[in-house]
């Protein structure tokens, strides 16, 4: 079930919320937790019930290993092997489902073998719940957290707002919130903030990201040659699509969790405002960076083992990050690009040269934009196609992609009707407007500290929520009417 679906917004969410609060009000707190876990598993199963046993068995095994770690004396030599078994099991599960075919394809290619592909369907959210459970095992090993109650553990892993696409949370930051008595009652301030942040997220997804997706898809998947302007329209469309899509989803997750009085960690902090690539990674998918830093970079030695090792460690975590994002060489390449950029950035810092702020932003943003190309491309050929366009290798003709096609956002439609825009290329208008929004406007998390008790916020929230809901369902026209 997706957050941006009718069944989630109008049926699942209200029903789960009211029953949860009702059970808590009746002091049936255990039953309330059971309700939340069952609802979360139902939410997960809606996509494909066949993978329910997979997430359940993963939860049970990790819980048992975590419990064993918690109950074993710190000095006991068996702790480390137990942890290693746990990590290997998690990574093995992820590897089997996500990377089997990638490895088989490469073995077939390099050794001219003909091993058949497994064609496994990737279980929903496996990348997220695997990382989350690895972090739990490591925290348990480090005696930073303990959990002896399976219900609590199941809630920590399966809590539906963050189950599908994060944020990746720590056991120690979630469980005290679930245990807090204050959090078991309806809190209207949290609900108001939750509705506001959810509405922003839904609007980002439905009105912005899905529109950019049209031009990105057209350029990456359906066009053979891109001119200079088209190359930039297509790459920037994807750059904004992925930001508004992913941060929109995270906003929705944070907003929904707030209804239940649970504060999820910030995951996006206006990443396109970043002035360096290091700054970018402090703002983009923050909980993934946190995981990679705590559980890979630091155990590898971090910056404690000399400059050379530091650079290698930095590069390695970005390589892993690339591979985590997708089983393909284009993802590995994307990770490597960011790894190299981080190493350069780190070296630059040692030179103590201060760069002009605008230039720093310009370089960072354009690097990120160029690097998204292989991330989005289905094949190397597609990536080269977009880059070729961006570097003017296919000429400078005016763009066809993004030109008015009659299916417009009503505001832009109105502006066009009265000739109030400088171009009839809607993609350019969108890129201009939402480029400014992502760089100049405060992000949804910053609203948490704002006084929203006024008509401005009521009307803003009601407007974007209404718009997004009314645009959830689109009519598909049949184009070959006259045959």
């Amino acid at each position, binding site marked *: 079930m997706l957050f941006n679906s*009718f*069944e989630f917004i*109008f*049926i699942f969410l209200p029903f789960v919320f009211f029953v949860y609060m009702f059970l808590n009000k009746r002091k049936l707190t255990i039953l309330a937790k059971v309700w939340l876990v069952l609802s979360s598993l139902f939410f997960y199963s809606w996509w494909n019930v066949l993978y329910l046993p997979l997430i359940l068995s993963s939860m049970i095994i990790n819980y048992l290993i975590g419990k064993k770690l918690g109950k074993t004396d710190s000095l006991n030599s068996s702790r480390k092997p137990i942890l290693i078994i746990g990590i290997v099991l998690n990574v093995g599960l992820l590897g089997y489902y996500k990377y089997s075919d990638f490895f088989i394809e490469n073995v077939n290619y390099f050794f001219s073998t003909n091993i058949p592909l497994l064609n496994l369907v990737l279980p929903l959210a496996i990348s997220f719940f695997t990382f989350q459970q690895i972090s739990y095992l490591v925290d348990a090993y480090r005696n930073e957290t303990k959990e002896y109650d399976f219900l609590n553990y199941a809630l920590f892993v399966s809590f539906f707002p963050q189950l599908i696409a994060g944020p990746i949370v720590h056991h120690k930051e979630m469980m005290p919130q679930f245990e807090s008595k204050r959090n078991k009652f309806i809190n*209207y*301030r949290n*609900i*108001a903030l939750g*509705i*506001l942040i959810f509405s922003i997220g839904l609007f980002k997804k439905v009105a912005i990201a899905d529109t950019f997706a049209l031009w990105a898809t057209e350029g990456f998947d359906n066009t053979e040659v891109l001119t200079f302007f088209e190359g930039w329209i297509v790459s920037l469309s994807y750059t904004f699509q992925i930001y508004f899509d992913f941060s929109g989803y995270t906003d929705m997750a944070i907003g929904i969790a707030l209804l239940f009085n649970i504060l999820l960690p910030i995951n996006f902090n206006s990443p396109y405002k970043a002035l360096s690539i290091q700054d970018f990674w402090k703002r983009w998918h923050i909980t993934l960076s946190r995981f990679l830093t705590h559980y890979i970079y630091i155990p590898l030695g971090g910056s404690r083992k000399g400059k050379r090792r530091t650079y290698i460690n930095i590069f390695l975590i970005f390589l892993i990050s690339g591979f985590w994002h997708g089983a393909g060489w284009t993802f590995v390449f994307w990770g490597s690009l960011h790894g190299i950029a981080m190493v350069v950035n780190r070296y630059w810092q040692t030179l103590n040269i201060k760069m002009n702020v605008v230039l720093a932003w310009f370089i960072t943003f354009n690097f990120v934009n160029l690097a998204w190309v292989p991330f989005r491309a289905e094949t190397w050929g597609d990536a080269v196609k977009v880059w070729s366009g961006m570097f003017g290798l296919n000429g400078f003709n005016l763009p066809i992609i993004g030109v008015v096609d009659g299916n417009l956002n009503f505001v832009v439609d109105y502006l066009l009707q009265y000739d109030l825009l400088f171009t009839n290329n809607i993609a350019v208008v969108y890129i201009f407007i939402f480029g400014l929004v992502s760089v100049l406007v405060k992000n949804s998390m910053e609203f948490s500290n704002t006084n*929203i*008790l006024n008509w401005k*916020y*009521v*009307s803003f*929230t*009601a407007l974007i*929520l*209404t*718009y997004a*809901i*009314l*645009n*959830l*369902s*689109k*009519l*598909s*026209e*049949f184009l*070959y*009417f*006259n*045959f």
Partner: protein
Amino acid sequence: MRTNYKRWVIVTLLIPLVIITCVGGFNYYIDPLWTFSHVNKLNTSQDSFNERQQKTNIVTYREFDYDTLLLGSSRTTYINQHDFMGLDTFNYALSSMSIQEYNDYIEYAKKENKKEFEYIFIGLDFYATNKNREMIEDPQIYINKANEFMYRFKNLISVDLLKQSIENAKSSSAEDQYFTRSYNRENVATAKVAEGEEVKKEIEKTVESYRESVYGPGYEYNDDIKKIFTELKENNPNTTFIVYTTPVTSQLFNLLYEENRLQDYNQWISDTVEVFGSVYNFMYTNSITSDSSNYYDGHHFYPDVGTLIAHKIINHENKDIPEDFGVLVTDDNLSEHLNFVERTLTEP
């Protein structure tokens, strides 16, 4: 403070709720997706923006109990399902319907009908015999969509649908035909009437478009046609199939000869007769196809002609059917008929 936040929540949720209810209510009242069956003065003339979805929605959500199914392309949509006297017919003809789509829609209609059909009428179109034709839509997309959870309700809450509802309301209030093709709530289509010069231009446009993209060099006769027809018969052993060819204007029919497709046409008629035993052929030069006032473009006839076709193929007496309109072709008269058709093309 608590009260303030409570009020904020209530007002903020109430505003979208009111707007959404109004939009959903109006969309329900008009029902452009045809998932309900109510009739009112604002929903009697509906646009057919996607017949695959809309007619599949009728099959899924309205009371569906018929003994006869009618299949075909947009040409056949203009045949009134009530013109098959004595039969309870559902017109499941769809724009640009391909031969390859028939089976899935028949099977789905059978499932919803909870019984086999006594008769299946199929309006065959020559353009659909092209092996290289790209416009083939997977029926399962529409069938699955119609069966999505809460489909008929969740689609009401849509600004896209609202735009369509407004257009349908305008159409229903208009005195003249508003859309090129409109449907009433009984699944009966009407066509926008075109006048003399306009029709002439439209026919010329159709002929040129067919010359470029249908009968041109990209055409190749689909040898699987017999196999597809045979499978239809095998999947419906207790059903009588009655097939007919759709009448196009003589100008468009002549193009078939000009583009050297007569042999493919003969093959098509022969294959059809071989599988079904007979075919009512209307696609040749006759008094209906020669009179452009029966068409609004090169190949779409008006519903009046549809009535003649319906009556002819069920042998219902109708004095308006010209004698030369429609020939029942069987094994016995196949060669004779094909020779006759060729003569009408070659002899002035």
